[in-house]
């Protein structure tokens, strides 16, 4: 929303602070100001001038004009009367008219503040006529889109040489307001409401115009004018309609202050009726719509207008004012003439009842609609007009009649009001909120007095009664957002400035550590210190990625409104995402690397949590990638085993078993990670076909761990005990020749069993198998010592004999 600072200040008491400070205050106490467009110098060197002489140049579209600029422009040639020569191509230029002249050296206002400001100068036209500056069209002074002619100024406001900006108060600053933070404040979407708030934060007492607070119809309804309104109150809480009749007066050709206000709010002047409705919307926040009365009646086939507001029917169509045809749904609200659609409520009128230059009578609509329905209309039809932006905030029903009557008064030169009709017979009871001073100060941490609270609230037209500690607050009809004590407390805090509240730290207790968070930090420390790189990848994956790794799409939650197919499914495990990110790193020149990620995964097979939301699993995924084709199983295993050992988790590697999500592991070269009788993860080589689909060489290895299970294991782990011997230790190599299919783990277990009474260290050295042989040699390096004495040579020999006999 764009708000003109000049317009805002009208009607406020004199403001003693600078614009900059005012904008800061608005930002601190009302709404986020996204930016300030400074138009103070936008109309520099643009003047009102009178065309004193105007002669058409034959066979061209140009006229040679002499203008009276009151002598203000410098560096121009003047004729003997002191007039300046300007060539003008506009068809409506004529002698005697007042126009806006952009003098040489001025920036054309429509280009002011843009990347390419255009400075007007003096040109020679048709090879012989000097033309100083130019007379401007509405588009050139940024007050409309019209380029068919130049703008004409009313002689009552214009005098030669008067600065154009001074006529319309255009030395202005425009505030760009972030609408989001006013979602709950429909009343501030009109300059009146915005101004009331600014008064409040400046400590000024604001009073709305009498007619706004208490609408009085200042004309008698013409008995001959009939109009029926039928509404569904859920969809349309209040509908007011005025019938106006043309006075026959011609529309003026001159530009009005109102048109400049529309332009400052980013709208465009169209014709006096539309402009008057738009201006009322900008001023009071109440959108209005004008129907052509005779077309309305004709469409409905009735003698007098029969307005029926109802939900649209499925597939019902309506051609809108802008020429597009919408197909409506039952979520849309439609205004009908005797059941024939004539407007998409809140959004746009229909082409079938549009006013035009032949319009004799008007039905002026002023209504409120269900913001919930209009929000759906907005989304379904992509209409984001100024009107629907306001309607979707929930405009107060209390203002439909006063604003309609106000608009009729604004239009009275051209249209005479005949009758007013309104579905509201009695004003609803105002909302009253009772609270105490203690509640206010207790929630904010302040020490306001009841008098201060009363003044703050009364400044913005709340009714306030003080009774002992009790404060009774009556919300004005436009404050539809006020319901509970906290709403009032917010007003007090906001209007006085939250920033004036003294920050005071409360005493705090000690915090409980979060063990899963701590575990993840520990894992991060371990893996990264061993050269692995932690990554984060999206929680959403492409269906194609699941197909590559053999995961079933039925087991994944599908996003129905995904941004792209790349992000269509909630991932079932981490490894596929890591595989997906590996090729890019290989190609970037990293020959060998390890990636890992810890994050939540949500395969459907996990079912639901106690609160009926999908059960997630915090998972660690790790991949080891080598650009060369070779098995990385034992590398991944080394990382896994080291990690689990440091964490103190007891586990075993068991025969690989399939789960709902682990289809990417090569079963013959993979293992299940088992603790007790629970599988807590998998370790293995990625299937060759899967690696290939990611453009990765065969042999990529990975592991994954269920972090919840790991946490339970790590927590349950006994504290690590150290035993060091004070006696010399013996260093020996051991090579065992065993059958080729003997599992390494069996051998190691046997060695450990043989050494169980000693303090020892065991390191595997190599596994050797000759080509074609059916045995293999497994070598270890051992260091062992007795806990209580120095080992004798014979004892050492006995130990070695036992070890060497292991098969």
């Amino acid at each position, binding site marked *: 929303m764009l708000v003109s600072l000049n317009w805002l200040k009208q009607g406020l008491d004199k403001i003693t602070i600078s614009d900059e400070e005012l904008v800061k205050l608005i930002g601190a106490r009302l709404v986020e100001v996204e930016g300030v467009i400074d138009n103070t110098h936008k109309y520099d060197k643009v003047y009102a001038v009178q065309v004193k002489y105007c002669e058409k140049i034959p066979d061209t579209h140009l006229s040679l004009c002499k203008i009276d600029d009151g002598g203000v422009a410098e560096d121009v040639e003047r004729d003997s009367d002191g007039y300046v020569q300007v060539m003008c191509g506009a068809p409506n230029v004529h002698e005697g008219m007042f126009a806006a002249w952009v003098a040489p050296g001025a920036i054309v206002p429509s280009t002011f503040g843009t990347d390419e400001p255009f400075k007007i100068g003096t040109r020679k036209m048709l090879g012989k006529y000097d033309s100083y500056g130019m007379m401007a069209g509405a588009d050139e002074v940024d007050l409309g889109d019209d380029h068919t002619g130049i703008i004409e100024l009313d002689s009552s406001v214009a005098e030669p040489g008067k600065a154009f900006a001074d006529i319309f108060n255009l030395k202005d600053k425009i505030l760009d307001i972030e609408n989001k933070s006013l979602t709950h404040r429909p009343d501030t979407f009109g300059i009146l409401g915005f101004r009331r708030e600014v008064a409040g934060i400046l400590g000024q007492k604001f009073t709305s115009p009498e007619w706004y607070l208490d609408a009085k119809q200042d004309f008698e309804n013409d008995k001959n004018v009939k109009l029926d309104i039928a509404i569904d109150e859920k969809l349309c809480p209040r509908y007011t309609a005025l019938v106006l009749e043309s006075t026959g007066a011609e529309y003026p050709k001159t530009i009005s202050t109102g048109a400049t206000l529309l332009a400052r709010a980013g709208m465009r002047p169209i014709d006096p009726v539309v402009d008057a409705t738009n201006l009322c919307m900008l001023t009071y926040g109440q959108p209005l719509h004008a129907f052509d009365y005779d077309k309305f009646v004709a469409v409905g086939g009735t003698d007098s207008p029969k307005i029926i507001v109802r939900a649209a029917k499925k597939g019902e169509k309506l051609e809108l004012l802008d020429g597009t045809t919408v197909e409506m749904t039952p979520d849309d609200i439609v205004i009908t003439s005797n059941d024939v659609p004539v407007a998409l409520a809140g959004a746009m009128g229909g082409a079938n009842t549009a006013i035009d230059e032949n319009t004799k009578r008007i039905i002026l609509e002023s209504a409120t609609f269900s913001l919930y329905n209009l929000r759906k209309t907005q989304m379904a039809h992509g209409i984001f007009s100024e009107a629907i932006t306001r309607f979707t905030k929930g405009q107060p029903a209390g203002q439909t009649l006063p604003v309609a009557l106000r608009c009729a008064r604004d239009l009275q030169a051209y249209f005479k009001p005949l009758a007013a009709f309104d579905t509201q017979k009695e004003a609803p009871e105002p909302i009253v909120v009772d609270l105490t001073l203690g509640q206010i100060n207790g929630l904010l941490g302040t020490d306001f007095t009841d008098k201060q609270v009363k003044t703050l609230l009364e400044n913005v037209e709340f009714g306030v009664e003080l009774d002992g500690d009790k404060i009774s607050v009556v919300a004005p009809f436009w404050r539809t957002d006020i319901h509970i004590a906290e709403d009032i407390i917010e007003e007090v805090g906001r209007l006085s400035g939250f920033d004036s509240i003294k920050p005071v730290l*409360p005493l705090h207790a000690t915090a409980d550590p979060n063990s899963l968070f701590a575990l993840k930090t520990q894992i991060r420390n371990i893996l990264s210190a061993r050269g692995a*790189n932690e990554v984060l990848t999206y929680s959403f994956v492409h269906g194609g990625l699941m197909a590559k790794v053999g995961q079933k799409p039925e087991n994944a939650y599908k996003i129905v409104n995904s941004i792209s197919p790349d992000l269509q499914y909630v991932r079932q495990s981490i490894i596929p995402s*890591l595989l997906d990110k590996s090729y890019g790193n290989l190609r970037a020149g990293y020959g060998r690397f390890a990636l890992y990620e810890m994050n939540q995964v949500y395969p459907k097979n996990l079912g639901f949590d106690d609160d009926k939301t999908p059960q*997630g699993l915090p998972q660690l995924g790790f991949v080891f990638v080598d650009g060369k084709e070779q098995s990385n*199983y034992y590398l991944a*295993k080394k990382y896994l085993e080291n990690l689990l050992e440091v964490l103190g988790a007891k586990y075993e590697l068991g025969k690989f078993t399939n789960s709902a999500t682990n289809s990417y592991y090569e079963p013959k070269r993979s293992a299940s990670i088992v603790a007790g009788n629970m599988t807590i993860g998998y370790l293995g080589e990625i299937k060759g076909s899967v690696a290939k689909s990611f453009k990765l060489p065969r042999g990529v290895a990975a592991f994954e761990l269920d972090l919840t299970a790991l946490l339970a294991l790590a927590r349950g782990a006994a504290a690590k005990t150290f035993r060091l011997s004070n006696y010399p230790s013996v260093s020996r190599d051991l090579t065992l020749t065993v059958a080729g299919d003997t599992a*390494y783990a*069996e051998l190691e277990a046997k060695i450990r069993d043989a050494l169980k009474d000693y303090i020892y260290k065991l390191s595997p050295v190599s596994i050797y198998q000759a080509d074609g042989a059916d045995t293999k040699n497994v070598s270890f390096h051992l260091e062992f010592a007795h806990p209580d004495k120095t080992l004798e040579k014979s004892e050492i020999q006995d130990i070695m004999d036992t070890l060497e006999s292991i098969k």
Partner: protein
Amino acid sequence: MATLQELKNELKALGAEYAKIKDLPADQRADFGKKINLKKQQLNAEIAAAEAAAEQEDVAPLDISAPCDINGQMPEFLTADFGSKHPLMTELDRVIAIYQSMGFDIAESVQLDDEYHMFDSLNFAKGHPARDGYDTFRTEEGFIPPAHTSTMQNRVLKANAHKLKEGKAIAVAVPGRVYRNEDIDATHEHTFYQCEGVYVSEDCTLGNMLAILREFFEKYYGQKLNIKTQPGYFPFTEPSLEFLIEKPASLGGKGDGWLEMLGCGMIHPNVLKAAGIDPTKYQGFAWGGGIDRLIMLRYQLNDIRYLESAKLDFLKEFAC
């Protein structure tokens, strides 16, 4: 059973069959086409199965318990200087450590939630336009990858309500991954991290909230900071505010600019009620802010997309 090669030949031959369609009477073409397609699907499935079986046969089993390959080298870790921690996670650790030092428990946010936690329990009226501001994703079942960590408020309040009865305050920080359905560019991500804070006691005030938030940022940036607020609107807080800090010296601040850090406010009575906490006895405040933004500021990162890119070129800048 047919060999893989035979199956492939058969598939090739089937291709030639297609050409015959045009010679058939029009009324038989559809049937013929269907039959060929069905046959083609069968063949493709058989080929895939045969290929998978062939891959299996190719694969030699390995000793899952061994330390290294037969005749292979003993594996060695990559060098430590190659490793890195993700900057977002390091930042979260930093943030969490400060909150813990200030007496806040830590609870992590879920990544797939429902309408109730995301909106209903947070006092969003059904169909209210405020819901639009969150651009949520949805699954077929109507679940929501949460668009803010506030989705955890109801759970955290319920789980800790007993503390109030014990005369203690609820003080919890909730870090988590959140999602918004928006196109990404250098400054926008659909996936990012937030940290929520929730505090409830018998008598805490907005003044307490401002003090806690200032304290957090002063510890985080290691300097005294000026703060200011702007009115905001969130259905789950009343009053609602945007919280700003003076640009810290470590980010090049010279006492002029302001940084918008988070949204905050006093918890709406309906939110307390929904969690079974009596709003006439207890009151609280809550806030939520982005973690990604802290990183963007700290490292003057010019493109937020690096964070989820898993590019080593980027990550290795954060070697540990």
